[in-house]
């Protein structure tokens, strides 16, 4: 591997996990007041939906630090989220890339207008370029075109990618990317399929 490739690899790894560039000034209001407003805004919310309003420890820490946790807080979030990653029992992180393409394309599910059984998509294309053939892609995240090739289709790298998709904050605390596995938004099988979509040499991502 030449020096340029190494450089590109390092840069792409950084970009993929870069946290939000915080621009929010210091809070000027008591957080308890904000939470009272939040509670009033979702007063009618009941049942399972209630949990979506309340923040978990990591969401609280990321909000309070403007997504730029430093020092012990950074380590604390990373360690907590790393401990929460569940790998497939058989250790296999590569699923079916064709099914992964569907997960990457589809953005349905989990909205208050959806049915409980509505298909949940990963909606990767909302933020990332992947296959060159798909021109309708967002730019909130870096391009993932050629991702597997860039990582030499390496098995250890694929395992790291599984962890990133399962819980982005295990790699970069306060990353903007959802913790798809941690929140159970995507199933283990769906995440494996997306990893295959990124790593299979036959996948359009690597064409």
């Amino acid at each position, binding site marked *: 591997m030449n020096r340029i490739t190494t450089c590109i690899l390092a840069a792409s790894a950084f970009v993929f996990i870069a946290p939000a560039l915080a621009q929010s000034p210091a809070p000027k209001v008591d957080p308890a007041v904000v939470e009272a407003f*939040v509670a009033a805004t979702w007063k009618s919310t009941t049942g399972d939906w209630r949990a979506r309003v309340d923040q978990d420890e990591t*969401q609280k820490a990321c909000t309070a630090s403007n997504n730029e946790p430093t020092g012990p807080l950074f380590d604390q979030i990373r360690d907590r989220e790393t401990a929460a990653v569940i790998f497939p029992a058989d250790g296999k992180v590569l699923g079916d890339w064709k099914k992964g393409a569907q997960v990457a394309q589809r953005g349905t599910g*989990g*909205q208050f207008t959806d049915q409980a059984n509505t298909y949940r998509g990963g909606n990767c294309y*909302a933020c990332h370029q992947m296959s060159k053939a798909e*021109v309708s892609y967002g730019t*909130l995240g870096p391009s993932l075109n050629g991702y597997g090739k860039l990582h030499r289709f390496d098995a250890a790298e694929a395992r790291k990618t599984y962890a990133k998709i399962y819980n982005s904050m295990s790699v970069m605390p306060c990353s903007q990317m959802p913790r798809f596995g941690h929140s159970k938004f995507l199933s283990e099988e769906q995440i494996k399929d997306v990893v295959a979509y990124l790593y299979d040499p036959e996948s359009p991502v690597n064409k």
Partner: protein
Amino acid sequence: MRIRTSAIAALTAACAVLGVGLLAGGHAQGQQPEQDLSEKEIERYRAMISDPISNPGFLNVDRGEQLWSLKRGAKNVSLETCDLGVGPGKLEGAYAKLPRYFADAGKVLDLEQRLLFCMTTLQELDTKDVIARRFSGPGRVSDMEDLVGFIANKSSGMKIEPQVSHPKEQEMLAVGEAMFYRRSAVMDFSCATCHAAEGKRIRLQGLPDFSKPGKAAQETMGSWPTYRVSQSQMRTMQHRLWDCYRQMRMPAPDYASDGLTALTVFMMKQAQGGEITVPSIKR
């Protein structure tokens, strides 16, 4: 009928334009990224549908005018003496200065909250039905969308003047900003996830940056309420925020709740000085 026909024509044209955009994007490989071409085609589509003569949102404005002078409620009076902040019954420029603090209510209200307040206090109208029809749909008109269209139109051509001098307004601004950055729910999203950087897109849709004052915030806030072609309805900022939280996988926020008003105060502050041109027409 003409309006209906032109709306269909606009949709057909939009599909054709988007189709061309996708094709053009697929062929553009070199120095000019496909992003620029797609952006150009979308801009062309926007220009095509931004024709005030064929904007069905003006039907809402007309209906809103009738509702404003309609006598109803236990008191059988109209809304014509309702004070929207610039004096009883005065409509010109009222929307440009909302949300704002109202001493009689003891709190900061946006236009929709203020209208509900006037309906309850002036007309003694049971607002249950009005709230049930807060968002229009097939076979369901919304008094609120009509009234907001009519009243906001009376500020068209004026500049956004956020009201942030009263301590309660300052509190709302701070709360709104905090809510804008507050991460939650299954996706860990906040408003800032999509709206705190310049020139970003979700799929092909451009995302206005609300993290700093300026053009993006001005153009966005200056163009609501709007007629949404994809929904065939007039929509207000209350609906836009409800729709944002839907996409964020949050539960539905309560209509006319104070948190949404706080967010609106924050966004209007970022949009200070922007020109209001409403109702606009959007995708």
